[in-house]
């Protein structure tokens, strides 16, 4: 009877297309909004992921990576003295204003890396050599800085600008994950970063560390926290802490959650209503099948097959459309779009719920159907 069910489904082309459009729209909306939401969350913790180090040591009261609370300079040695720590280096991170030669000002995030190792440097360099940051007045920009500060005609290797009235010369352009605030990132050495910023009692933003081989990172972070009283997180935990802060302190979660929920409800409403109409319009036919010996279970299987067939088709088309959208938006870098298998799995579960709900309404109708209807 599967064959009959599918022929019935595809035979009513208008209804089939309406169902398909409804489910495709729902899937596309959920995937698109979900991917953008996740992309924004990834952006929000890009300051952690861009530096790619396993352990972050912070002020114990820190809320998220971009809310820097300076710690004492002695923290580096205290962390180094914790058993299981292979190395620990200082990191400066702070906001500053850059003044270009054309008179434009731009706010930038200054990142100072330990000069002997350059630990925390971006993995990929688009132009120039990152090691040249060791040269006098040298800085490395990320590609978003180039874009935000006037484009490649204004900002290129050799461009000179001022940071707090001190000279900065671009020696390389690095590739990084865009940040949530999209503030240009300027990399330099830790020592030079301290010189760029106004004098403060505490200038150390974070201590970056690594556990010795064979020692669990979580164990080392626990030891650091217990022995130094500082905050110590694995990179993953610090990223999640930042994401959690964004969700709690901004309306992003509610906004995207509402849209995703709307997609789910609209999809369910369209699919449920259309499917119910489809069943009601074919009630006599279903009654005839029942009279001819088709059990309610057979009819239920037919309905479920129809629902899941159109549902999975809509799933494929919806994901395809959302992916094409994501491909173009992500390529231009204008919108965050990160489509994860977890999201796709979640959408599949949501879609199957929609299909089951839609089918169930029809099945209940059919279960109550008296085959005698065919004689009326």
């Amino acid at each position: 009877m599967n064959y009959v069910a599918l022929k019935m489904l595809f035979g009513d082309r208008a209804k089939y297309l309406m169902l398909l459009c409804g489910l495709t729209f729902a899937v596309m909306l959920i995937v698109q909004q979900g991917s953008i939401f996740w992309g924004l969350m990834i952006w929000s913790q890009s300051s952690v992921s861009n530096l790619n180090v396993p352990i972050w040591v912070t002020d114990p009261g820190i809320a998220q990576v971009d809310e820097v609370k300076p710690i004492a300079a002695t923290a580096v040695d205290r962390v180094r003295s914790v058993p299981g720590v292979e190395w620990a280096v200082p990191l400066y991170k702070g906001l500053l204003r850059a003044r270009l030669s054309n008179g434009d000002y731009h706010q930038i995030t200054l990142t100072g890396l330990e000069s002997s190792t350059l630990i925390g440097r971006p993995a990929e360099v688009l132009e120039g050599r990152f090691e040249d940051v060791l040269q006098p007045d040298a800085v490395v920009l990320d590609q978003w800085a180039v874009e935000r500060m006037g484009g490649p005609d204004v900002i290129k290797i050799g461009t000179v600008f001022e940071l707090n009235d001190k000279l900065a010369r671009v020696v390389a352009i690095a590739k990084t994950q865009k940040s949530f605030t999209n503030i240009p990132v300027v990399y330099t050495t830790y020592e030079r970063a301290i010189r760029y910023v106004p004098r403060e009692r505490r200038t150390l933003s974070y201590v970056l560390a690594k556990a010795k081989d064979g020692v669990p990172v979580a164990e080392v972070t626990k030891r650091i926290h217990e022995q130094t009283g500082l905050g110590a997180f694995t990179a993953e935990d610090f990223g999640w802490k930042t994401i959690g802060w964004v969700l709690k302190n901004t309306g992003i979660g509610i906004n995207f959650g509402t849209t995703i929920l709307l997609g789910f409800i609209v999809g369910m409403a369209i699919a449920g209503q259309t499917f119910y109409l489809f069943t009601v319009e074919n009630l006599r036919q279903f009654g005839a099948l029942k009279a001819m010996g088709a059990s309610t279970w057979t009819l239920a299987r037919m309905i479920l097959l129809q629902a899941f067939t159109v549902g999975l088709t809509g799933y494929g088309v919806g994901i395809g459309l959302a992916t094409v959208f994501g491909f173009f938006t992500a390529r231009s870098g204008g919108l965050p779009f990160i489509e994860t298998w977890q999201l796709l799995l979640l959408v599949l579960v949501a879609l199957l719920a929609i299909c089951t709900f839609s089918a169930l309404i029809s099945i209940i109708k059919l279960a109550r159907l008296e085959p005698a209807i065919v004689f009326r």
Partner: protein
Amino acid sequence: MMDHPTEEQTQPAAVRLRGIVKSFGTGDTKVTVLRGIDLDIYLGEMLLLVGESGGGKTTLLSAIAGILEIDAGNIDVLGVPLSDLPAGKRTTFRGKTMGFIYQQFNLLPALTAAENVAVPLLIQHIGRREALHRARTMLERVGLGDRAEFLPKNLSGGQQQRVAIARALVNEPRLLICDEPTAALDGPNGQKIMELLREVGRAPDRCVVIVTHDSRIFHFGDRMANLTDGRIERIESITREGRA
């Protein structure tokens, strides 16, 4: 037409109805549609259920088919106490032993004529290829071999009813249930359908029950039961002269 016993009545009844009562609604709105029906239908015969509208013809037909619960009485079909069977077993029994022809044909619009005819076989879990082969053979028998791949919308009313007849007979049922098979057709087409029903539907090991109010086809039956106000008023046998 005259009332006398036919040859079939000397055999045991294929369908045996005793004291059938059926009401709809409750309280003041309760309407009793069948008021104690006793009736025997024999293999090899074509019985017409006739009478005024609202007389209970279709209700009785539904009860015989086991698709309507009755309030009281017993229905035996081919020796099986149908009224005592649970709904699931009744459905299975119906699928194996009964064929249905409806006033509005009730063909599935998305399926070709052959596929429509194959549906009862598919319900019985017969493979699609075998079912379609048998469906095409059946369509040949009703004169629609060349229309096997047509969709119902591309067939005339008469042709659609022929497809419905083929569908009703394809699983070789022993009880053929027909509800106003000519009501949606014009006179000549109605006559042709009844000729076809007598030719291919009537068989020594099958009984055919037809509900109709179309007096132009009365002469095709072997017997005619007249229902009035929920009771069988009279049963008449139809002579060869009457058919002629």
